């Protein structure tokens, strides 16, 4: 493959006595869906937080386009085109979908320093953004808190897509959803990938991972222990790598 878009090398992160990451590696290439899997406590969340600027590693390197970077905040990561859709979605339930989509970068009317919101324009863009993703929202002016879990997920994904130019991390995006809504989210992931944005999917759900990912990277005890091409992998192999029965890679 070509040069990685985002790479972690020998990342170490310790919390007190807990070694969350113990020389972890991770690679994401442009335009793919790569699943990051691992058992509870394998270091998935810590690794994602490191790569999205939420925490700083004790040692090791993060590289974007092969160049070392140092993120001091999620806004730093965002400036590199990296976004995260958190498990809790981080939406404001009392604001409507259009407002949530534009939160923190509103569009103003008249004399912009007055900061008078252009709600019409924000709604128009929101409808366009949802249409681009193939998301059906009955009403972009309804408070997000009144939407279903799947619809809320769609709003969060649409927001991430409109911020992210290169990579989106999705932390357990289907964990709280029903079967139908789950399908919709997986569909969203493929659509995002088809727009040329790399998706890093963090998941526990093996069938789901194999259905949507191009590649799979497995973490165990703070290290990457295996990498698979999803089309050639089986659930047994993934579970084996997660539990330590199978190791294909020494780092």
């Amino acid at each position, binding site marked *: 493959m070509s040069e990685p878009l985002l790479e972690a090398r020998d990342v170490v992160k310790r919390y007190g006595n807990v070694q969350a990451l113990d020389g972890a590696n991770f690679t994401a290439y442009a335009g793919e869906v790569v699943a990051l899997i691992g058992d509870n406590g394998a270091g998935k969340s810590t690794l994602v937080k490191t790569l999205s600027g939420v925490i700083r590693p004790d040692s090791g390197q993060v590289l974007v386009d092969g160049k070392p970077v140092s993120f001091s905040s*999620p*806004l730093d990561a965002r400036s590199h085109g990296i976004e995260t859709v958190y498990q809790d979605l981080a939406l404001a339930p009392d604001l409507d979908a259009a407002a949530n989509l534009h939160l923190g970068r509103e569009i103003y009317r008249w004399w912009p320093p007055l900061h008078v919101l252009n709600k019409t324009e924000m709604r128009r863009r929101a409808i366009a953004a949802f249409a681009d993703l193939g998301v059906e929202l009955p009403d972009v002016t309804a408070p997000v808190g009144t939407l279903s879990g799947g*619809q809320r997920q769609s709003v969060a994904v649409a927001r991430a897509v409109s911020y992210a130019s290169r990579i989106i991390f999705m932390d357990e995006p289907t964990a709280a959803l029903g079967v139908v809504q789950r399908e919709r989210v997986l569909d969203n992931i493929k659509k995002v990938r088809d727009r040329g944005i790399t998706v890093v999917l963090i998941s526990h759900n093996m069938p789901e991972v194999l259905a949507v990912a191009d590649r799979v990277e497995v973490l165990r005890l703070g290290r990457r222990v295996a990498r698979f091409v999803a089309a050639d992998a089986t659930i047994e192999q993934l579970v084996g790598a997660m539990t330590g029965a199978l190791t294909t890679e020494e780092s």
Partner: protein
Amino acid sequence: MAGPAAGQEAPHTSSRAPVARGPRLLRRTLAAGETWVFGALIIMMAVFTVKEPGKFLTISDLSLNAQTAAPFLLMAIGETFVIITAGIDLSVGFVLVLCGVVAGEYYQSNGGANAGVGTIWVGVLIALATGGAFGALQGVAVAKLKIPPLIATLMGLGIAEGLSELITGGHDLSTVPNTLISSIGTGSFAGVQWLIIISFLATLLFGLILAFTRFGEYTYAIGSNPEAALRVGINVDWHLIKVYALAGLLSGLAGILNLAYFSTTTISGHPLDNLTVITAVVIGGASLFGGRGTMLGTFLGVFIPVLLATGLIIWPANQYLQYILTGIVLGAAVYLDQIRRRLRERF
């Protein structure tokens, strides 16, 4: 199969072409809290009018009620912003007194009753600055020191009360510039009292700011989910400080109005302003859990305790009954908000 149709849970009407706009507007009007508050006000007026036909609901009585409401309205504007951030400001009436005292001291030592217009304006600015600074400090306590708003503003309440008593030695200052009394206090413009003009214009201005500007949007966002606001890069701490400063500033303006209207500092006259103001805001539909509330609701809400007080005097009933009733109304409004939240929210 994972097409768009498969993931569709709700029967959808395209947002591009809202079908049946009229009924939706009607439904929204009926669902809006403001409609119910307005209805309650009408019923209250009707009851008091039927009881005492000659006294209630005359033009002079309505304008008297609006004048009484003026300082409450100003404090309630600030309280609305604070409550929408999921905070609370208990200090309002005490900051009002403190600002009146500080301005009163300035007037007393600068011309007293005969002070000129320039002095009066300086006194107004001093009151606004005192209120704004006091509020900002409470905001710092909430945002930076992470002291819960209830405690931070209870602390502020104590400090404001203590300062007022210290500065005056416990005696009300009654040397207020005559020009201030005859203009803001009792004067009118085009037949409308300045108290009403100032408080209504402030309500309109801050209502527009709340509904249509970034400041308002961030206020809702922070009250709705501070973590979400933080993650999109909103400076949550700074915004909270500004909101508490605004509440203090408006209490300061209320302090000037109060000083002008009563021509004294009324040190011990505002112990339950916070009860009245918080009740007004909550009746108006603002949620103590944050993220919800409107200025129209607050505007209507303020008149419930004010009309209640007038009505009880006319009835005639013991006027202290108003605090008991206001307390009960506050409890009922918060209880209703809890139920509404449980019914509507899936969060």
